[in-house]
Each structure stands twice: as structure tokens, then as C-alpha cells.
């Protein structure tokens, strides 16, 4: 790890970022692996959907597309704030970077609350994990994504912890945390497209 405590925008970090990828390359291995695992989940979903298109279409109508769009916009906004956090840290504006990290958390929290409310509304209408195949996939995909989001709060806490003390600051670690958060966003966009939009 290229830890450059106190000098987050140092030459070595910039060189590393220019030569490889933002943050630790190890985190990109995680992104690749998670993308493969989720691709496998999505393939299973699409395969099952192709076998019972009428059931999936009918069940899909019980989802509120507006809530899905709202969740997507909220998560995209959180990704935008984490990108601003990285940019501010690169420029040495650590107060702004910390503010943006907190805003990322806030929007992540809004997504979290919105998702729980959506689940509660679906359950109230009688659509549970075992109602039918579509809702099994709906709860499974959104719940596994939710779990990634919960881990994301821990990851952002690490970024904030790094930013708050000059002795700890590592641009690479902050970018690694941001990469994880973008992965959550990327996965959600795929889930949104498959569950809410695809007809």
C-alpha cells in the first residue's frame, strides 16, 4: 500500500493513480469478482424470467417504478458526492472531502430508509419472499445489495477516519473506499434495470 500520511496529493500517489487505477488495485479485483458473481445472479434471473414471462410481468406491475427511480437517483447522487470527496482530497481540501463523505453517507441512508419502506409496503400488500418466483428474486437481489450497502457505511467510516487526522490520511485508501461505494451504485443500476424496467 502506498501510504502517504499527511501528503495525500504527493507525487508517489499521483504516479500510482496514473499508472494503475484509482485506489488499491486489489479493490478492483473485488469489483471484478463481485461483477462476475452478480452477473451469474442476473443470468439466473433472466433465465427464470424467460421460462415464466407472464408471471414475472404481472408481479412486476406491483412494484412502484417511481420508488425505483427515486432510489436510483439517490444512489447516483451519493456516488457523485463520493467522487467529489476523492477530488477534494486530491486537492488537499480535507474539510470539503469530509463533508462530501458525510453527504455520501446521508444519501446512502436515504436509500436505506426508502428501501426498507418499499419492502414494508410490498409486505403489507401481501408480496413476500415466498409469494412467487419474481418476488423471491426481488427480495433476494435487493437484500444482497442492501447488505453491500451496509458494509459500505463501514467503508465510508474508514474514509472519514482517514480524512479527519493528518497522521492517517492516505489518498489511496480514500480512493479504495470510493471504488467500493461506486460498486454499490453500479450494482444497483443493474438491479433496477432488471427488476423495475425490463419488460
Amino acid at each position, binding site marked *: 500500500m502506498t501510504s502517504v500520511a499527511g501528503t495525500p496529493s504527493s507525487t508517489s500517489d499521483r504516479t500510482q493513480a496514473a499508472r494503475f487505477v484509482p485506489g488499491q*488495485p486489489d*479493490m478492483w*479485483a473485488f469489483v471484478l469478482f*463481485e461483477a462476475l458473481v452478480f452477473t451469474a445472479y442476473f443470468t439466473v434471473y433472466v433465465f427464470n424470467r424467460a421460462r415464466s414471462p407472464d408471471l414475472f410481468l404481472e408481479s412486476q406491475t406491483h412494484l412502484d417504478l417511481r420508488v425505483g427511480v427515486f432510489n436510483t437517483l439517490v444512489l447516483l447522487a451519493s456516488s457523485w458526492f463520493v467522487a467529489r470527496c476523492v477530488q477534494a482530497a486530491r486537492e488537499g481540501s480535507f474539510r470539503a472531502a469530509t463533508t462530501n463523505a458525510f453527504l455520501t453517507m446521508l444519501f446512502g441512508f436515504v436509500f436505506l430508509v426508502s428501501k426498507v419502506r418499499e419492502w414494508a409496503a410490498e409486505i403489507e400488500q401481501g408480496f413476500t419472499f*415466498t409469494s412467487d418466483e419474481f418476488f*423471491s*428474486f426481488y427480495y433476494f437481489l435487493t437484500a*444482497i445489495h442492501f447488505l453491500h450497502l451496509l*458494509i459500505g457505511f463501514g467503508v465510508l467510516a474508514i474514509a472519514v477516519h482517514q480524512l479527519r487526522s493528518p497522521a492517517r490520511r492516505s489518498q489511496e485508501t480514500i480512493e479504495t473506499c470510493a471504488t467500493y461505494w461506486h460498486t454499490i451504485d453500479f450494482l444497483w443500476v443493474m438491479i433496477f434495470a432488471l427488476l423495475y424496467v425490463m419488460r
Partner: protein
Amino acid sequence: MTSTAGGVPDEPSSPLRKIAWHWRHDEKRELWIGWWTLVVFYNLYGLLFFVIARTQPPPQPTLAPSEIAQWFDDRRHGLIYGYAIVFIVGGATAIMNATLAYTMRRMSVSRAFAYSYLVIYALATLPGMLIMGVVCTVGAMRPDRDPELMSWLYDFAFLSFEGTMGVFLIGSLVWMVAVLLDRNRVFPRWFAYLNLCNALTEVVVAPAWIFKDGAFAWDGTIAWWINMGVFVTYTTAFLTLLRRMILREDFGTGPLPELARDEAQEPSGSLEAAR
């Protein structure tokens, strides 16, 4: 054969003498024994569960009681002899867990990580193979029992095996945190993240308790096949990294030295070379 200044004779060239030489003089002897135990165990585990006992890939959860009685009858000898070997080699898990815990003791992290890992994986041996082995052996050795009872044994065997991945989840997370905190560079960081991937796929087997068919049942595409793909990747990764770690081991307390490229490809001065 000549002797070096330290009184240790030079390594002989014949394979058997080489093994004997390493047995006597290799300072990494115990680590290589641990590594080979892991390799042999995992291969044997696959052979016993997939080929001899034929309990993996798992059968359908929806079989009728009469079909379940037939299922036990069809593989009676495989279950009895296969799981007899599983019980015999089950003790190897002590050596395996100790070797894996050693990696955490070599890290710059608290000993609590290695101890937690040892405890959780000692517990994992029960749902990971022993309960299923005992239950399947009972079913195979009492073929005259009521099919309803056989049906209960069948559910118990597969739900205890497929649906109890929580202990592996915690073990993976303990290893992940240890790797991330370690300053001795025992394992690369991507392995920590791979532990997280493995832990997350352990969660998705939980619906196997609810569903009897489809992607989330104990034989389902998501609960079993994808999970197994991740587990095989994870196991291959840690066996490869563990071998590399043993090659790098200098028995010090600081960062592990990196290997020269040719040393990583053709290890010498260890039991590994006797392969």
C-alpha cells in the same frame, strides 16, 4: 554426500532420499506437512462427497419418502464406506486449521484473530461434514426403517450441510480483517476482499431453509452452484497463497520477504521440492 559447515548434508537428488532429507533437515517441515494435508484433504473431500458417497451435487429436496428410501438404498455402500473414510480423515482438520491459524499468528495483528479462527473452524467441522456423515450413515445402515423417518434424515443431512454456512462466514470475515490490518504482508489485500466475496455468498444459502425448489433451494443455481464456484475459487486462492507464504517464511516477526521470480516457480530447500 558432502556436508555443509552447519553439519547438514547436501540435498540428495533421488526423490525418496530427497523426502527423507527434507523430513530431517527442512526447517519448514511442519508447515509443508500442514499445506500438503490441506491439499490432500480437499481433494479427498471432493472425491468422497462427489464420487463415492454421491451426496454432492445435492439431490432434489422435493423427493417423496419412497424415493428418499430408494436414494439411500442406491448409494448404501458409498455412504457407509465413503463417510467411514470421512470420519477417519476428519482429524486432519486439526492440522489444517492450525496451519491456517499460523498465517494469522505470522501477521502483525492480535493473537485473538488466530484463536477466533481456530474456534470457529473447529465448530465448522460439525455442519461442514460430520453431521451429514453421521446422518447419512444412519440412513444407509438402517434401510428397513419407515420411509417417513428416512425422509426426516434426508432433510436433516442436507439442511445441516447446505444451510449452516454462518460459521464459515464468520471465519472468512476474521481472516479478512486480519489480512487488512496486517503490516507483515503475509497475504495480498485482494485476498482479504476475496474473503468478503466468499462471506457474502455464504449468506445466500440461507433461503435453502425456506425453498424446496428453484434457484434458492439447497440444490439451486444460486444457493448451491454459484456458491460452489465461489468456494472453489476461494479455496484454490488460499492454497496457492499459503504455499507462497510458506516459501517466503523466514521465521521472523517483521514483514515477510518477497520471493524472487525463479524461487516462486521452482522452490528448493523445502519438502515442496520433493514433489
